[in-house]
């Protein structure tokens, strides 16, 4: 029942649905055809952590990235962070000189005559293109659909380590070039970032390696000279031991210097990354002020100090050394936890990238202070050993010093060489961390796969959107529609009899039952209404009836004429009086002289018998309006009119009076009071319920016998039954 009802509504409002559908559908389809097409091209990159490079870095105490072999969410988010994309986009824009057509140029092309107007206003009309900014390149706003311009989107491909760089441009060639340039610069940028981690160490090595080499050679020469001059052979084992210890300590200092350099570089790197994200600056300061963190840092530094101390006495595998190393590891863990707390509680949203960076930063700070304290402590230890050495005989002591210089410079030089080699390795392996697996190719012109907009797809979308919108509008209009449409709507009025309905006739259908064949449905409508009228007035015979409506042109003259013909066909003597002096309608149905009628008698000097015209249908006479006076109301509301009706009731079996609409004039009320009853015509879908309620109320107050209502021009499902008779 509900579905039927909805279908009924849609059928009734089919033109509203069709028009709305057509408007949406055509807009989208024509828009699709008008918009210049644009093309997409995709470069695909794979992110991979190279295990070789990681292990190399780890062996020299450098952590390239997070240090784990597989990529985690943090890393991917890191790569995709806008802060890394913008510099890439900037480079691409400047490298390829990416331009776009100015919006005003497009407007000028689309709207003829706009160019002179803009020129007059002072707009530069000659520059047709403008260089895009990096933001523009990364921004896919709605206007870029209407005015296509190049843009880039970078997305992770599903849950993999693959990143798709999709470039879009009206020029397929340019789309390909942008995508590839983005990929290339993306890799360069990432490499630069990784290399910055080693930069400190590298600089240190480069600065010191030559000096170390010379120092080593000088020391060797000095030893050789001494040996030749003093004929000195060998040192005893105790002296060698002392020399070795001093040498180890000095090397530690050098190592620490390198570590300090490297750590400082890493700290700078991280801090610059953090600074580029303004919302994190505040928490970065909190990190420095937190007491717990400070004390943990101190503990860590002390542990490093004692480690340095202990390492001078014991080997790496000695329990004391291992114990201190364990403590260091525990303290580091505590420190990281504490940092997590600081950010977890005090900063609203810390993303994984940031958390990772700050944790690293904390450890670097701790490490740095550790190295620095060690270097402060180490010289005093060295001095102690050197004092021991001074107690030896002069020749031995001199030789020991020379030997020490050789060992120390050799160690330093060796380790610098080793580092140089390792860093070179790490840098070269870092190259393979990101690489292009699928370079972008130029999409073919006309290939629907890489061309937007796609006509077929948009057409399907247009059908769906159009249908949805059309139906919604129809249902909404139905919802807010207050008009009387169906017999049920009429029946819903309390105290009003529904006399019957008349279906919407077709244009070519006859308008009078006298002109139609016997089985024409209009006859049955009129017959049913007449039977209803008879039924409602039961025993008392109606001598006169007024026919009215709430507003103009609801079909009251049409109904009055047919009702009269129907009564006349039954052998009754019937008269129609057209009292609608504002808009006479009866004359449309009968071929009679218009200038003779009611006013001819009321105002003019025509006899009453002369204005009652024969209609041509047996038993039916008609009084037309006659010439229309300027003030029709006064004429109708006169005693002469009242008397005329009473006189006609004596002559005819039935007098039918066509009156003006109730909302147009008071005539219908006055005439209704002078006759036996009134019938209201309602045109389906025109008269509103609220008006109609007022009318019923007015009739009641005027004490008029409201016979009932007839619903005219009914549409809808039931109307189809009418065709069985055709």
């Amino acid at each position: 029942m509900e579905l039927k009802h909805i279908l009924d509504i849609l059928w009734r409002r089919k033109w509203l649905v069709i028009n709305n559908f057509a408007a949406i559908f055509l807009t989208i389809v024509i828009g699709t055809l008008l918009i210049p097409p644009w093309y997409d091209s995709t470069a695909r990159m794979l992110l991979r952590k190279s295990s070789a490079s990681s292990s190399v870095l780890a062996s020299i105490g450098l952590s390239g990235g997070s240090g784990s072999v597989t990529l985690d969410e943090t890393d991917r988010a890191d790569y995709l962070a806008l802060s890394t994309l913008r510099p890439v986009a900037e480079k691409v824009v400047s490298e390829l000189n990416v331009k776009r057509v100015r919006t005003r140029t497009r407007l000028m092309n689309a709207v003829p005559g706009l160019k002179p107007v803009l020129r007059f206003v002072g707009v530069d009309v000659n520059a047709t293109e403008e260089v895009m900014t990096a933001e523009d390149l990364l921004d896919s706003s709605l206007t870029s659909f209407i005015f296509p311009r190049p843009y880039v989107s970078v997305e992770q491909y599903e849950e993999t380590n693959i990143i798709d760089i999709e470039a879009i441009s009206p020029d397929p060639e340019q789309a390909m070039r942008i995508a590839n340039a983005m990929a290339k610069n993306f890799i360069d940028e990432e490499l630069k970032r990784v290399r910055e981690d080693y930069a400190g160490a590298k600089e240190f090595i480069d600065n010191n390696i030559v000096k170390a080499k010379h120092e080593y050679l000088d020391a060797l020469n000095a030893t050789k000279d001494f040996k030749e001059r003093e004929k000195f052979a060998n040192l005893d084992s105790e002296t060698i031991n002392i020399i070795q210890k001093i040498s180890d300590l000095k090397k530690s200092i050098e190592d620490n210097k390198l570590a300090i350099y490297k750590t400082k570089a890493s700290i700078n790197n991280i801090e610059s990354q953090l600074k580029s994200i303004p919302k994190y600056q505040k928490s970065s300061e909190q990190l420095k002020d937190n007491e717990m963190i400070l004390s943990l840092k101190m503990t860590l530094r002390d542990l490093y100090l004692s480690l340095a101390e202990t390492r001078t006495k014991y080997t790496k595998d000695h329990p004391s050394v291992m114990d201190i190393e364990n403590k260091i590891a525990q303290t580091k863990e505590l420190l990281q936890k504490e940092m997590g707390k600081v950010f977890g509680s005090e900063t609203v949203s810390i993303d994984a990238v940031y958390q990772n960076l700050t944790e690293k930063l904390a450890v670097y700070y701790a490490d740095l202070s550790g190295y620095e304290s060690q270097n402060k402590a180490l010289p005093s230890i060295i001095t102690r050993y050197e004092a021991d050495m001074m107690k030896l005989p002069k020749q031995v002591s001199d030789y020991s010093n020379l030997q020490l210089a050789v060992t120390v410079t050799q160690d330093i030089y060796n380790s610098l060489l080793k580092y140089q080699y390792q860093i070179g390795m790490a840098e070269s392996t870092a190259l393979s961390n990101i690489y292009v697996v699928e370079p972008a190719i130029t999409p073919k012109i006309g290939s629907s796969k890489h061309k937007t907009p796609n006509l077929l797809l948009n057409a399907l979308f247009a059908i769906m959107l159009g249908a949805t919108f059309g139906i919604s509008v129809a249902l909404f209009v139905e919802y807010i529609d207050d008009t009387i449409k169906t017999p049920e709507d009429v029946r819903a009025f309390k105290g009003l009899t529904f006399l019957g309905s008349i279906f919407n006739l077709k244009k070519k259908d006859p308008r009078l039952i006298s002109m139609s064949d016997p089985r024409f449905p209009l006859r049955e409508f009129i017959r049913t209404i007449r039977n209803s009228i008879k039924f409602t007035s039961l025993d008392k015979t109606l001598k006169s009836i007024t026919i009215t409506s709430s507003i103009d042109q609801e079909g009251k003259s049409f109904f009055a004429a047919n009702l009269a013909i129907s009564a006349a066909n039954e052998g009754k003597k019937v008269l129609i009086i057209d009292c609608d002096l504002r808009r006479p309608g009866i004359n449309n149905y009968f071929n009679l002289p218009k200038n003779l009628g009611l006013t001819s008698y009321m105002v003019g000097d025509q006899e009453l018998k002369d204005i009652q015209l024969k209609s041509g249908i047996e038993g039916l006479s008609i009084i037309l309006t006659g010439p229309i006076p300027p003030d029709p109301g006064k004429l109708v509301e006169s005693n002469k009119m009242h008397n005329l009706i009473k006189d006609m009731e004596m002559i005819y079996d039935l007098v039918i009076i066509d009156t003006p609409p109730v909302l147009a004039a008071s005539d219908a009320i006055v005439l209704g009071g002078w006759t036996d009853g009134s019938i209201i015509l309602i045109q389906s879908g025109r008269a509103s319920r609220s008006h109609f309620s007022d009318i019923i109320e007015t009739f009641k107050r005027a004490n008029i016998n409201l016979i009932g209502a007839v619903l005219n021009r009914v549409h809808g499902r039931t109307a189809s039954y009418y065709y069985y008779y055709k």
Partner: protein
Amino acid sequence: MASSEPVNFIDIHTHILPGIDDGAKDMDESLRILRDASKAGVKRIVATPHVFMENISAVLDAAEKSFATLKIETARQGIDIEIFLGAEVSLGAGLAEEVKKDSRLTIGGGGKYILVEMPFFEIPIYAGKTIFDLLVSGVTPIWAHPERCPEVIDNFNSVCAYTDNGVKLQINSGSLAGKYGRSVKRAAVNLIENGLAHIMASDTHRAGGDETLLKGFIRLEEICGRGKALGMCVSAPSEIIGLNKDNNN
């Protein structure tokens, strides 16, 4: 097989009178309809021309004359069919009074049953009162093709107010064939399945082509079984034309 036994149908709703209404145009067409009906097993047939409140006596006078001629012609042509006269009366206010005045409105003039037709678009406000008046004056209204009435299509139970009071429902054989559309067919089937329909008739207007009572009977058998189908096509109609009581055959 029992189902293949010939059935002697009685068709109580036809427009076979020549030139009276929108049915048979002339004597020739009337005779063709009768010949076809006879071949299809119809033994008795009631001519029910359309009658309206405003032209009762005129139509019935003409119908009587036409009926007499048709009867003579049928006998002359040797068509084995018995013809009765009735009317399909358009329901109008004051019908009961008219029936009292002119019993020819009832089937066979017997004053017992009257075939009435509702307006095709809605049940009018005077329907209830008019039917009641008929019932209390001892005339049983037979509601012609209720399955075509929009109110019944929407809800077939809307006939109950009438059937509970004794009104008989007559289904058109063409409705079961879908002649008037699927919704009408569904309404007809619903009425039959719920035991609300009493009679089936052909409502024949034209010679040839139309759904015959025989075809309708076969469909009816499928819906409600042979027993009930025979009831609707033979015993109920024979009660209406007064055969069972008079026993004159």
